[in-house]
């Protein structure tokens, strides 16, 4: 079977994302890439933990963090993880429309998260908590900003994927692409859970 051919319910494989060697390679390679990403964020977290009380000329963490807004952002991002799970479930059953619908919701949630984060950063800058106000500021914006950058990249990636494959069904060629995006999105969510705990909760009470 040609990898570019649209899959039907009759010839739909158990795991279309891993049905070809290319798919298997991408699947494994992406998991390994996420392993590397883990070290990347671990280094950022380590740096942040080392500098989180070095406020320099800026305000202290407990003064500026607004938990309600961060909580809203957390709920939005976690929900987007759930919708991407629904998308993958639909992918495994060849329900293309449902899959694309859920991914579209995921994209909207991702963009709303980004909007909130930008609003939050602007708010902090007005409070005097900037990238250059102290070691804490540098570490905060680098860690949270790296995560935000990952969300932004994910949104661009997902948009490309949705536009490119509009009107095309699932194939052995594009199934791994959808699946890998979901993996990436879960990873970005998990990182946020750690940021919420280590940066915001610890900043508020630690």
């Amino acid at each position, binding site marked *: 079977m040609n990898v570019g051919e649209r899959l039907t319910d009759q010839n739909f494989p158990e795991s279309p994302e891993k049905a070809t060697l290319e798919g298997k*390679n991408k699947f494994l*390679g992406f998991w390994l890439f996420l392993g590397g990403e883990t070290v*990347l964020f671990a*280094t950022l977290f380590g740096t942040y933990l080392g500098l989180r009380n070095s406020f320099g000329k800026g305000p202290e963490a407990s003064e500026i963090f607004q938990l309600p807004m961060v909580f809203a952002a957390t709920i939005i991002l976690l929900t987007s993880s759930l919708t991407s799970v629904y998308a993958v479930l639909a992918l495994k059953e060849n329900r293309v429309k449902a899959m694309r619908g859920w991914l579209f919701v995921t994209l909207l949630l991702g963009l709303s998260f980004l909007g909130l984060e930008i609003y939050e950063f602007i708010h902090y800058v007005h409070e005097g908590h900037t990238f250059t106000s102290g070691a804490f500021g540098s570490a905060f914006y680098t860690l949270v900003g790296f995560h935000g950058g990952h969300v932004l990249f994910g949104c661009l990636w997902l948009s490309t994927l949705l536009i490119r494959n509009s009107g095309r069904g699932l194939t052995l060629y594009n199934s791994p*692409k959808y699946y890998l995006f979901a993996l990436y999105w879960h990873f970005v969510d998990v990182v946020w859970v750690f940021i919420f705990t280590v940066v915001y909760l610890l900043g508020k009470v630690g």
Partner: protein
Amino acid sequence: MSNAHAANKSSLWDWLTTVDHKKIGILYLISGGFFFLIGGLEALLIRIQLMKPENTFLTGDLYNQVLTMHGTTMIFLAAMPIIFAFMNAVVPLQIGARDVAFPFLNSLGFWLFFFGGVLLNLSWFLGGAPDAGWTAYAPLSTTSSGSGLDFYVLGLQIAGAGTLIGGINFLVTIINMRAPGMTFMRMPLFTWTAFITSGLILFAFPALTIGFFLLMFDRVFEANFFDASMGGNPIIWEHIFWIFGHPEVYILILPAFGIISEVVSTFSKKRLFGYSAMVFATVLIGFLGFMVWAHHMFTVGLGPVANSIFAVATMAIAIPTGVKIFNWVFTLWGGQIRFTTANLFAVGFIPTFVMGGVTGVMLAAAPADYQYHDSYFVVAHFHYVIVGGLVLGLFAGLYYWYPRMFGKMLNETIGKWNFWTFFIGFHLTFFPQHFLGLMGMPRRYFTYPEGFGLGSMNFISTIGAFFMTIGTILFVYNIIITHAKGKMVSGDPWDGRTLEWAIPNPTPHYNFLQTPLVRGLDALWIEKMAGNKKMTPAEPVGDIHMPNNSILPFIMSLGFFIAGFGFIYFNKGGALALVAIIVGLGIGLVCMFLRSWIDDHGYHIHKKDLPKEDKGADL
């Protein structure tokens, strides 16, 4: 597309767009070799300056620049790419694969390394090279004036991304692309070491990526990570650097262990002694390599508990390394030894590396390290493991695999001259440096006073460096002679044992006409002993699927190269620098977009265009 491939000419366009692991291996070798010559030249300048007390040949900041660039170039731009050259040229063949798992990424990894290396070296012509040592300790690196350190950060960031991509590629290749029957415990030891090295790259390089980002943010965007007056902490840089930097040492040496294992086994006509112990030792060294980074920081003042733990962990690495040394000796023991140039380098490697290992254990003793730290004793130690270990291993690999990579055998007579001049020169250069260090000569200083008794040993050391230069020139001469006058050899010139010798010369584009069936360790040797003329195939001759060439990796890397310039001149270049950043990153993103947008299914070489049957390697 397939017509373009049928006329597979060796044109420039073909080299820029190739995704063939064999060609990418050659690209890595040529560019890594070029940077090796530059790094060697810098070493020679250092040794000329230190030839006599109070010399004025190369002083002050210029000396610092040459010293920094020597270390940085040798580690990141010479040693790593030459290792990747071998991994590309050999690993897919050793596991019976037709290409790597991600041919496109393979090309991208090379071009990122290449443009990163070029960017770093352009600093010489644009206001001065980095001058804070290859370790770029803060706050020296954050406060160093000029753009040198910016070139260091951006150049290595781009090159490092390429290395990470390469590491992931080889992990997936080795896990997913092995021929039928090639179980993990039947993989040749070079493939095993490439596998573990790739794993170390995956988990070590992201730490460096972040380290470079922090340093870049401090320098370019006025962040305060390492600025103590704003609450920053320069020790964080040391931790991050060595969390990467110590695994990096094993990233470098493990493939050399693999090469030595292949060479010693082939030229003793024996199966590698203690194969499974060798595999286990490789894995253990890789694992322990992550537990020892703070032995570079004994004098920082982390306290006796931390120092003791890291000292013990460091000494523990001597055990698996010792296992390897004994296994090589036992492989040679009772073998039909042929002293080809490759084997001379391998046999020379064994005692030399042991000496580097012994000083390593001495340095691991934390209290004693307070005496050795930042002295020439350390310089002697790491040159014994990196030059005496890795570089001798790379030379062995070059003489061994040259016929596989280029179809011609390097001249053995010149090769032996190459070995003896380089080997004697090496010991002459670095052996006296142990004693210079014990006598108190600090590393990185551009001179030393008269009357301290340091002059004669420094002079001997410089003479040794000239011998090594002669050895290197002989090697370059050997390459020229070989390509001008050498004859094509058979596909199996050494009576090899592993799959890379089972194919005709020159290696077909698709490597294996039929995927081989592997029936044990030393797969080819098993077939030879069974009286077979070629490998037993695992499949009939059929259509072969191959990846398409692409120019995108080249353009994408060029984009990041341009953006790198923009960041380097961000504080001085004004609007032009900003334009470079936006255009450069834009080019990179557009290339990623195109890669996602354009369906790329590869192409097939059809059965009718293939030879009727597998001829093997003229055994």
